[in-house]
Structures are given as structure tokens and as C-alpha cells.
């Protein structure tokens, strides 16, 4: 199994504080990897560094062999790595379909200049892209809402639309930042099924940050645990569940407790 994403010795300082310290892990093609840890462990910082929102202070991030640390998010998306955000992140006043069309921007084979002159090729390219986006909406059960403004959708649907926007970029690696935060148990279970489904049908590799242990243990092939910005464990779900340092990180040591 070749590594799709390699995070190597990444540190990120905010002033004198290390949010991440010498973190290394990799994600192989076709895996679902979970990134977990207590609050403030540096999961989201790690996510932001990989997706280009933050530059690492030191260390390298390679995606498909390309060095991507410090690139703009838009350039990283073009390489095939897309992410979702923790909070609801959609374009609230645009329609659901338009939201996904925007997500497909990097994969729309139309040069902006051609679309300015509205050439036949540009129209055909946009129509093909719209077709693909409509299919994606159908796939995620959002098709009935395609002409509604995204901001009017119920919360659970907006979360799913966030995934749709990321998928529209046709990523090889999909990064999900707390995909079930704020969802009720049924919605969470549904999102879990969806992730597993997409992983199988779209052949997409998944890296997810999540607090919801049942989801993580249920769908991840491998888990990386961060605490205080450092990697404290890595392994199969069963190994992580019984790992002493992980239990301590979450529950405290016996003396403290």
C-alpha cells in the first residue's frame, strides 16, 4: 500500500506555544484514517496545515509525492485533496446546485476566458459539469433541494452539502473535519454510512477528525491519536481502544483521577 499523504516531522508554533510538535503519520491509498485526541490536542491545526490553510513552522507534507506544505489551499485542491470544515460551511445565499458547481470549480474544464465569451466549448463544459454536480446531489440525497438557497436547508442537510462541495472537486483524498458534530444520533449514523459508502463507490481515501468515538471506531481502518500537539499513538481501532497512553490522555492518570 503506497502512501498517498505523508506528514513528516510537522511542527506549528503560535508564538511560543507548540500547537503541533514533530507530528508524523501517513495515509495510504484506499484507507479511512481517523485523527483523534482530547480538546486542544492540535487536530484541527494539523488539518489546517495539511489542507494549506496554515503553513507549518517546520516539517514537510507530501501528497502523491508533491511537497504541498505552504501551498495555497486552491493549489492543493487542484492536486486532488479536498476538505470540509468543522462549522457549517456552505455558500448560504447560493442554490444547492450552485454550491456544488463552485466546489467543482477546479474540475470544470472551462477556462474563465472562454466562459467570458460564452463559447460553445465553454457552454458544453459547464453543462457537463452541471450534469456531474446534479448526479452528485442525487447520490447524497440532496437532489430535491437543488434550487433552494443552501442557507435554508436543515442543519444536517447543510453538513451533507459541505461533503458534496468537497466531493465535487473529485478528490483522491477527502478530509472531513468533525463531520458529525452537532448531528443527532440518526443523522450521525447516516453520515457514517455515507462516508463508508463514498469510500467504496467513489474510491476516495478519507482522513477524518472526529470526537464521536463510535463513528471513529466503526468506520476507520487506522487511528492516529494526538495529545498536546504530539502523536501519542497510532494503530488499529482495537489497539487504540486498549492503549494505555490514549486512555490516560482522555481520562487522566490514576493519580490525577
Amino acid at each position, binding site marked *: 500500500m503506497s502512501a498517498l499523504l505523508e506528514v513528516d516531522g510537522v511542527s506549528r508554533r503560535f508564538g511560543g506555544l507548540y500547537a503541533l510538535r514533530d507530528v508524523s503519520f501517513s495515509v495510504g491509498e484506499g484507507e479511512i484514517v481517523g485523527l483523534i485526541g482530547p480538546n486542544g490536542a492540535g487536530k484541527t491545526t494539523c488539518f489546517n496545515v495539511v489542507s494549506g*490553510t496554515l503553513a507549518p513552522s517546520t516539517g514537510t507534507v507530501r501528497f502523491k509525492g508533491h511537497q504541498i506544505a505552504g501551498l*495555497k489551499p*486552491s493549489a492543493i485542491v487542484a492536486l486532488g485533496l479536498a476538505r470540509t470544515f468543522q462549522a457549517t460551511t456552505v455558500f448560504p445565499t*447560493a442554490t444547492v446546485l450552485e454550491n456544488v*458547481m*463552485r466546489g467543482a*470549480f*477546479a474540475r470544470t474544464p472551462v477556462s474563465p476566458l472562454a466562459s467570458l465569451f460564452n463559447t460553445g466549448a*465553454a457552454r458544453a463544459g459547464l453543462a457537463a459539469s452541471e450534469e456531474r454536480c446534479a448526479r452528485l446531489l442525487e447520490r447524497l440525497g440532496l437532489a430535491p433541494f437543488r434550487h433552494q438557497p443552501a442557507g435554508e436547508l436543515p442543519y444536517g442537510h447543510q453538513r451533507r452539502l459541505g461533503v458534496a*462541495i468537497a466531493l465535487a472537486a473529485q478528490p483522491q483524498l477527502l478530509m472531513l473535519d468533525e463531520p458529525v458534530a452537532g448531528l443527532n444520533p440518526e443523522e450521525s449514523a447516516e453520515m457514517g454510512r455515507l462516508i463508508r459508502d463514498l469510500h467504496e463507490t467513489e474510491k476516495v481515501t478519507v482522513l477524518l477528525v472526529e470526537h464521536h468515538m463510535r463513528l471513529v471506531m466503526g468506520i476507520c481502518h487506522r487511528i492516529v491519536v494526538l495529545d498536546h500537539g504530539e502523536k501519542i499513538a497510532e494503530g488499529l481501532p482495537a489497539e487504540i481502544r486498549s492503549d494505555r497512553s490514549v486512555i490516560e490522555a482522555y481520562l487522566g492518570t490514576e493519580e490525577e483521577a
Partner: protein
Amino acid sequence: MHDPRLPTTGSGRLPGSAAGRTWAVRLGALAALLAAAALPHFVSNQFYMHMANLALLNAIFTMSLGLIAAVGQLSLGHAAFAATGAYISALGALHLKLPPLLGIAASGLATALVAAILGKILLRLRGVYFVLVTFLAGQVVTLVALNWESVTRGANGLVGIPPISVLGYSLGARAQFYYFALAAFVGVFILLRALMRSQYGRAFRSIAENIELAESSGIDASRYQVIAFAIGSGIAGAAGAVMAHYIRYVSPDTFTFHESVAYITMLVVGGRQTLTGAVLGAAFLTPLPELLRGFVSMQHIIYGAVLVSVLIFLPGGLASIGHRIAKMTRGGRPRP
């Protein structure tokens, strides 16, 4: 005139009523254009012609400011680009005998280039910080025009700027200039409409609505913001040059902070979501102070009251009147 937010693709799949509306809009635009073209034949009053010319130029300034606003940035230095363009073309005509049309084109390109370079640096700032820096940039331009006396003649300004001439035919008279301004207005309108309906427009709206999500959707936010700022400022520069050749005079007072604020007011009052809004704002606010001249002492108060009431009762601007009326006549029934 179109709502540029409508999806651009799959026009064949628009619902029937929307297709009908498209035709109604096209006919309306054609009728408006014909009426505008016939205007000089019915208006003999030179002052009204002057107002019409200013309204057309203001519409160009406001539409180009709207383009910058479309990426979520508010420029308080729009008039400074107009001033820069005006001085470039005026100096070219006075010292190098540059034909005005060439000067106008050169002004547009030069201001667009300046804006692209400035934008590359300034557009890292967002919100109030960007507003503040563009305000300062505007003040710097005014100060340079005032103090670089050897070139700009300081507060006296440049006089005797030649009028625009097309194929040896001078457009010095107001009625003749009107056709030039109308053609320029239509050209800018069509360009910006095409821009907003293209992938550029999609990128601009994405950035305005959620810059982080736009960036992680593969839209290079800084690149598209620079593009919008350069095109918008370039149009302002060219239009500033047109103004200089129309009023045949340019001074540090021609384009000041007050003009920048006026364009923003026109944009907001007209409605900043659509190009039509910018046009309505300019058409409404350009002549308004003159119409109120009869009430001398109350002029500014009434002007202010009109602005405030538009903002209160039509938060979407004048361009939203149609929607408002449609909503009321439908009596709150859901949209078909």
C-alpha cells in the same frame, strides 16, 4: 437587464415562466436603449443633456465599483483611479498631442496595471482594513495632484484639454458627447454582465460569500480579487479620462473622496447585487440634488431623507422594487 446571479448554464432548462421573463427583460432593455438613443432629439435644454452625460459616466463608475464589491471588498479610493486616468490622458493630450481616444485606452490600461500591483499587496487585507487603506491611497493621489505643481499645475488644474474626436469628428457638444457616453456605458455594461455570468463571476461571488470555502473549492481567492480590482479600477481610470475630455478640465477637486463616497452611495441605493442596481442608483442620484434645488435651504436635508428612506424601505436597493411589488401582488403565496 439580467440578474447576474441566475445560473448561466443549462439555459434550455429554465422553467417556462423564467424563459418568458428573459424575453420581457430583453425587450425592456431594447426599449430603454432606443429611448436613450432618441433622448437628444427631445431634450433641447443643455443642462439636462449635461445631467444625462454625468449620469451615464456615474453609472460606469458605479458599475465598476460594483465589480470590486462583488468580491466582497469595498474601495474608498475609486475616485482616485478616475483622477489618475483623467490626469494621464489630459497630460498625454496636452504635452504629447496624444489623440483622446488613445489617451483614454492608455489611462484604462495604466490604472488597471497600478491597481493590479496595489491589489496584490492591499487585497491581503479584508473588511475595514481594506476600506481604510483605499481611503488613504485616495488621499495620496489627491495630495500628489495638488503638490506636484510642475506636472499637474497644482490647485489650478489642467485647462484646455481637447474634446474627444472620432474619425476627425469632434464630440465637444453635449448632445454629441452623449452618444459617446451611451456607447461607452453599453460597452461596459455588456462586458461586466458577461464577466459576472462567466466562471469569473462564479469565483467572485464564491469569494464574497465565504472566502475560506472558496479557497478550498480550488478558487484562488487572491488571484480573482486582484482581477476584479484591476478591471474595476481600470474601467474607473478610463471613465475618468473620458470625463476629463468632456469637461475639458481636471483639477485635484474633480475626483475626490466625496466622489468615492458618492459612487458607494449610488451602488448601495441602487442595489449592489445586480448591475441594474448600479445603473438605477446613478440615474436616480445624479440629478437628485439638482431637482431639489428649488428647496434651497432644505436641499441637503431632503437628499439625506431620500437616501435613508430608500435604505429602510428597500434594503436591496432600487433594483429590488420589482421583486417587492411582485411579492406584494402575489400576496405572500409561495413562488410557483
